C-alpha cells in the first residue's frame, strides 16, 4: 500500500485547500467558501481525472512546491506560471505525471493571482460540513498550508479521457464586472449610481478571499445611518462608509449592515479572483435575466 499523500516543501504566500465550498449553511453564519476561480478548479480536476467536487490547492501570487509520496498525476491551471518537476520544465494547463518523491514546483504567477493544482485522487483532508475548503473568514476547514504540512490524497481515479492541453481564459488587463443594481441602490444618490456604473475603479491591494476591494470615486449616500443586518449573496457590492465598493467573494460574511448597491454576475467573479492589485475595474449595469 503506497502512502497517498503530499508533503508541502514550500507553502507559498497563501495556499489553501478548496473544493466547491459549503453552501446551504448561511443561516448558521457559515460562509460558502470554495475555489474563487471555479472554472480553473474544475478544469484541473478534469485534467487529472477527478470528479468536479474533488479538493484542489489554490495558491496566491507565488505558487508552492509539493513532494508526492506516491506516483500522481497533477495539472496546474488558473494563473499561468512556470511549472517544474525536479527542476525540469513541464506543461502548465495539462496533465503531468509526477513520480513518488519528486518535487513539483508551481512558480510565481506570470499574470493573474491564483493558480490551481489538481492532484489525482484529490486532497482528502477531513471534510467540515461536507466541504474540505479553507474558509479564511470563519476559520472552518484546514488551516492554510505551511512548510512541512502533509496532505492526504484520495484513491487514484480510473484512467480518464486523455486531454493534452485545455484553453483557459487569460487574466484580465481590465476587469469588466456586469452588475444588476440593488437591492439597496436607493440608499445612494442618483449621481452615485451613475458614478458607480460609469467611472473607473482599481483593484485594491487589500483584496482577499472575502472581498475584492476597489478604489475610486467615493459613492455618496442618500440615506445616512446603518442598515439593519441583512443576508448577503456572492458577488454583492457592499459600500462601507468610506464609499469604496467591495465585491463579496467566496469567504464573504453571511450577513452585513452596509448597503449593497448592486450584485456582480457570478460568471464574472472568476476574472475578479485573478485581477492583480491596480487592475482597472469597470462596473457595467445590466438587466436582470
Amino acid at each position, binding site marked *: 500500500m503506497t502512502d497517498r499523500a503530499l508533503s508541502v516543501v514550500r507553502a507559498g504566500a497563501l495556499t489553501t485547500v478548496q473544493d466547491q465550498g459549503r*453552501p446551504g449553511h448561511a443561516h*448558521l453564519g457559515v460562509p460558502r467558501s470554495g475555489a474563487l476561480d471555479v472554472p480553473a478548479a474544475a478544469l484541473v480536476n478534469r485534467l487529472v481525472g477527478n470528479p468536479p467536487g474533488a479538493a484542489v490547492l489554490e495558491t496566491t501570487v507565488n505558487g508552492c512546491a509539493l513532494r508526492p509520496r506516491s506516483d500522481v498525476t497533477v495539472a496546474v491551471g488558473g494563473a499561468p506560471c512556470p511549472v517544474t518537476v525536479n527542476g525540469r520544465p513541464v506543461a502548465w494547463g495539462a496533465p503531468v505525471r509526477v513520480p513518488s518523491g519528486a518535487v513539483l514546483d508551481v512558480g510565481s504567477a506570470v499574470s493573474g493571482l491564483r493558480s490551481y493544482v489538481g492532484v489525482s485522487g484529490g486532497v482528502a483532508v477531513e471534510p467540515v460540513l461536507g466541504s474540505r475548503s479553507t474558509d479564511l473568514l*470563519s476559520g472552518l476547514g484546514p488551516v492554510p498550508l505551511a512548510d512541512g504540512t502533509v496532505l492526504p490524497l484520495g484513491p487514484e481515479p480510473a484512467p480518464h479521457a486523455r486531454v493534452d492541453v485545455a484553453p483557459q481564459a487569460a487574466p484580465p488587463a481590465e476587469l469588466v464586472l456586469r452588475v*444588476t443594481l*440593488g437591492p439597496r441602490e436607493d440608499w445612494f444618490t442618483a449621481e452615485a449610481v451613475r458614478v458607480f456604473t460609469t467611472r473607473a475603479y482599481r483593484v485594491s491591494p487589500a483584496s482577499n478571499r472575502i472581498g475584492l476591494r476597489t478604489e475610486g470615486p467615493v459613492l455618496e449616500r442618500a440615506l445616512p445611518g446603518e442598515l*439593519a443586518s*441583512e443576508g448577503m449573496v456572492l458577488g454583492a457590492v457592499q459600500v462601507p462608509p468610506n464609499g469604496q465598493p467591495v465585491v463579496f467573494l467566496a469567504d464573504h*460574511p453571511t450577513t452585513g449592515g452596509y448597503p449593497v448597491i448592486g450584485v456582480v454576475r457570478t460568471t464574472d467573479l472568476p476574472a475578479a479572483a485573478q485581477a492583480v492589485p491596480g487592475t482597472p475595474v469597470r462596473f457595467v449595469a445590466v438587466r436582470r435575466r
Partner: protein
Amino acid sequence: MSLRVLPVGDDALLVEVASGAAAQALHAELVRRRAAGLLTVREIVPAARTVLLDGVPDPVRLTSELTAAEIPPAPPGAHEVIELPVRYDGPDLADVAAHWGVPAHEVARIHAETEFRVAFCGFAPGFGYLTGLPPRYDVPRRATPRTAVPAGSVALAGPYTGVYPRSSPGGWQLIGSTDVVLWDHARVPAALLSPGTRVRFVAAEPVGAG
C-alpha cells in the same frame, strides 16, 4: 403582514418586512414551505428585518407568490427550549446595570427570567442574535471593542443577546459566561442555536450569592 420583495442579482430575493417579529414569522413560514416541498431554494437567511432567499430557480414567479402569500404568526412552541447555564460575572455587568438603571444582581435576574428566541445567526458560525428583552433594556456597543472576547461570553448589544462561540474581537457588553459549546463542527447539528431556537439562561449560581 405587509412585505416587500427586492430582487438581488439574478437568482436571489430579499424579502423585507416591518419588524423583527414579522421577519421571524416569515422565516418560520418559508422553512415550513421548503420542508413541505412547496419552495425550492438553496439558502433561507433570516436577519433583523429581512429574509434572504438565495438560489431561487424562478425569482419572478416566487416574487408574485410571496406578494400574495398569507404569512401566519410564528408558531410559539415549535422549537424546544435550550437552557444555557450562565455565570453572571461579566466585566460589563456594572455598565449594563447603569444603562438599565438597576443594581447589578437585578441584571442577572431580569436576563435569566426572559425567554429568548434566536432571530438570526451571523458574525461567526453558531453566533445567534437572540431577542426577547423589552426595548427599554437596549444597550449600546462598547465605545472601544475588545481585541479578544473569550469563548462562551454572554453579551448584549442593541436589542440582542449573543454568546460568543469562540474567542474573537467584539464590541458587545459582556454580562456573563457559559461553559456550553455553542459550535462544534464534528457534532450533529454543529450549531446549538439556529434561527427560531428558544433559549433560557439559567444562573449557574444563586443570583445574589457571594
